């Protein structure tokens, strides 16, 4: 399925979606508040059937954070990317671990690396960082660790 | 003909002529004790190096080859290392039981040596219930494992010990039943009588297929009873790190290790005695010439040859098979080995009554 066909299909299901141009895969932008609804529709619609979340990550743009979800369908073999801008000071987004179970671990990783809190996540605590880590998020651009990071 | 019994007789005569009977008895007991401890140590060293070589060759490796010629002193070096190592006791452990457990393991293994006939007329104690004695004492080894596992104050150890308890108690049954089948055939519980009953052929040949089945059951059961792979669930390296002896180090660990190997030796010696005629050379019915030729090989060589063959068999199992799971282990005993050995015992009893064996 080409991106254009996919775009028209998604527009039918999600009329409010906005798209990014010039990307390899169709890229959707949406508000964090709409995300749980959108996710449910993407997963359950028979034509779309995005049942495989193969990548979940976050990018720190210094002014805001962007959540990036890469979704694919094992039935129709199409791929889309969903992005959502978050406020950098109070990043919050609904969890999708009830829809795609793999998100549980990936969201925990993003939680500690970027400090994004996932609402209604069943088990949101540190996965990789040691216990007692103080509120610094290693993958944010302003993170400094004078001991372990050696600038060349 | 030169034999071990000559040496013992000469020592006995010399002692009797020099001392009064009480002192003779005391000296002989001390000699026997020293001999058992010596054999214990030598067996440990020999079996460890043997296991390491067998495993190495099966695993396309060379094995130990640095200490001594062809590496035969490797286990001696290891023992010295273990002896100078600190014997730690974990702080939360029950210190008395923790330190007692390895000694119980060793004492049990030593006691088991008493009724073994190492060569013709060369036996520490020819008691008339020899086989029963062995079965009774060998079940005591589970106490040392349970004690070690519980006293270590370690969950891994405890799990290993509990597994071992279930395992040894169940496998005791089929080991006992297969021993019983030979007792039925030989008509005696005494080790020397059982060996003498095989003067015209070993029971494994005389007893037709039921004896072979009994032999296989026996080997499986004793492998399980001595906690050897594929039944090493008490240790289960990849599951419980080291099972019941996780917290042991130094000489206390060495005693467990030694007891394991001596136990293997003893059960193999029992197996050799019951099924392969002990020190009895290979005799076939009434072929006198052949039987006579076989007698020229010393009886101690026959005994150790057979025992080491069985030990090799058990080592062979260990380095070939994966480990069973705990429920499969109990299934194997209760669903397969036990019914089979019960039916087998019936067959053998019928055979013994009807004199169908050779």
């Amino acid at each position, binding site marked *: 399925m080409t991106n254009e066909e996919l775009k028209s299909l998604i527009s039918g299901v999600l009329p409010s979606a906005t798209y990014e141009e010039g990307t390899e895969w169709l890229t959707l932008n949406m508000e964090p508040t709409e995300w749980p609804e959108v996710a449910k529709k993407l997963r359950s619609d028979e034509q779309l059937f995005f049942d495989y979340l193969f990548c979940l990550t976050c990018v720190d743009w210094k002014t805001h954070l962007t959540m990036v979800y890469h979704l694919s369908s094992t039935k129709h073999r199409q791929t889309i990317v969903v992005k959502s801008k978050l406020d950098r000071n109070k990043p919050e987004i609904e969890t999708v671990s009830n829809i795609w179970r793999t998100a549980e671990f990936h969201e925990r990783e993003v939680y500690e690396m970027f400090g994004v809190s996932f609402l209604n996540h069943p088990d949101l605590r540190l996965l990789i960082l040691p216990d007692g880590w103080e509120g610094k998020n290693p993958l944010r651009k302003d993170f400094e660790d004078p001991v372990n990071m050696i600038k*060349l | 003909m030169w034999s071990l019994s000559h040496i013992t007789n000469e020592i006995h005569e010399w002692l009797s002529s020099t001392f009064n009977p009480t002192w003779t008895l005391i000296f002989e007991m001390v000699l026997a004790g020293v001999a058992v401890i010596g054999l214990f140590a030598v067996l440990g060293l020999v079996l460890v190096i043997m296991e390491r070589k*067998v495993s190495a*060759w*099966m*695993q*396309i*490796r*060379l094995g130990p*080859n640095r200490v001594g010629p062809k590496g035969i002193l490797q286990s001696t070096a290891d023992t010295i290392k273990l002896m100078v190592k600190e014997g730690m006791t974990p702080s939360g452990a029950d210190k008395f039981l923790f330190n007692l457990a390895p000694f119980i393991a060793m004492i049990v293994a030593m006691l088991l040596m008493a009724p073994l006939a190492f060569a013709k007329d060369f036996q520490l104690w020819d008691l008339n219930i020899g086989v029963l004695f062995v079965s009774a004492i060998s079940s005591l080894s589970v106490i040392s494992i349970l004690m070690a596992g519980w006293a270590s104050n370690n969950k891994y150890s405890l799990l290993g010990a509990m597994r071992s308890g279930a395992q040894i108690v169940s496998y005791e049954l089929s080991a006992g039943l297969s021993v019983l089948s030979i007792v039925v055939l030989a008509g005696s519980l005494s080790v020397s009588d059982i060996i003498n009953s095989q003067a015209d052929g070993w029971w494994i040949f005389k007893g037709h297929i039921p004896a072979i089945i009994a032999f296989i059951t026996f080997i499986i059961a004793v492998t399980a009873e001595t906690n050897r792979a594929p039944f090493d669930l008490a240790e289960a390296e990849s599951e419980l790190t080291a099972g019941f002896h996780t917290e042991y180090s130094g000489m206390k660990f060495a005693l467990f290790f030694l007891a394991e190997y001596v136990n293997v030796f003893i059960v193999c010696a029992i197996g050799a005695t019951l099924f392969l005629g002990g020190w009895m050379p290979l005799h076939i019915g009434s072929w006198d010439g052949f039987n006579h030729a076989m007698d020229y090989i010393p009886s101690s060589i026959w005994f150790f040859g057979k025992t080491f063959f069985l030990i090799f068999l058990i080592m*062979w*199992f260990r*380095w*070939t*098979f994966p480990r069973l799971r705990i429920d499969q282990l109990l299934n194997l005993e209760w669903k*397969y080995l036990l019914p*089979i050995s019960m039916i087998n015992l019936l067959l053998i009893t019928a055979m013994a009554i009807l004199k169908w064996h050779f």
Partner: protein
Amino acid sequence: MKFIVKYIKDIWGAITSLLKGMRRTLYYFTHHKEIITQQYPDNRDTLNLPERFKGEVVMPHDENNEHRCTGCQACELACPNGTIKVIFKNEINAEGKKKKAIDKLVYHLELCTMCNLCIEACPSDAIKMAQTFEHSVFDRNQLTKILNNPGSKIMEGVE
């Protein structure tokens, strides 16, 4: 009856499968030619490492104690770990002109990951990978090496 047949079949299948495995291990037990152990420190003389093996970075010198390094710093830039540092000195060449040349090419073996990027980057083939691999020393400072020999200079015609 069916149950008993299945029971016996199960046992038979199990025993044959186990015997197959035992036959295989017995084969190796008796065939010592299959042993693949390499007795490492003993076979050091016969050990052949392939010529591409990445052991450590060295700078070859010819018989006149001359190397090919121009000091272009390409290796220093290519290195992801800061393993190589080039230290310059000013040299006066035959025509009496001042010329920039390397004083020391410092190589930190302890930082090197043998990624080969410096060798690829070098435009004048001044450095290459050596096939040594026994790098352990008692003092970490000995791992910091100076690649150019003392008193060495750049080869004629290398720019």
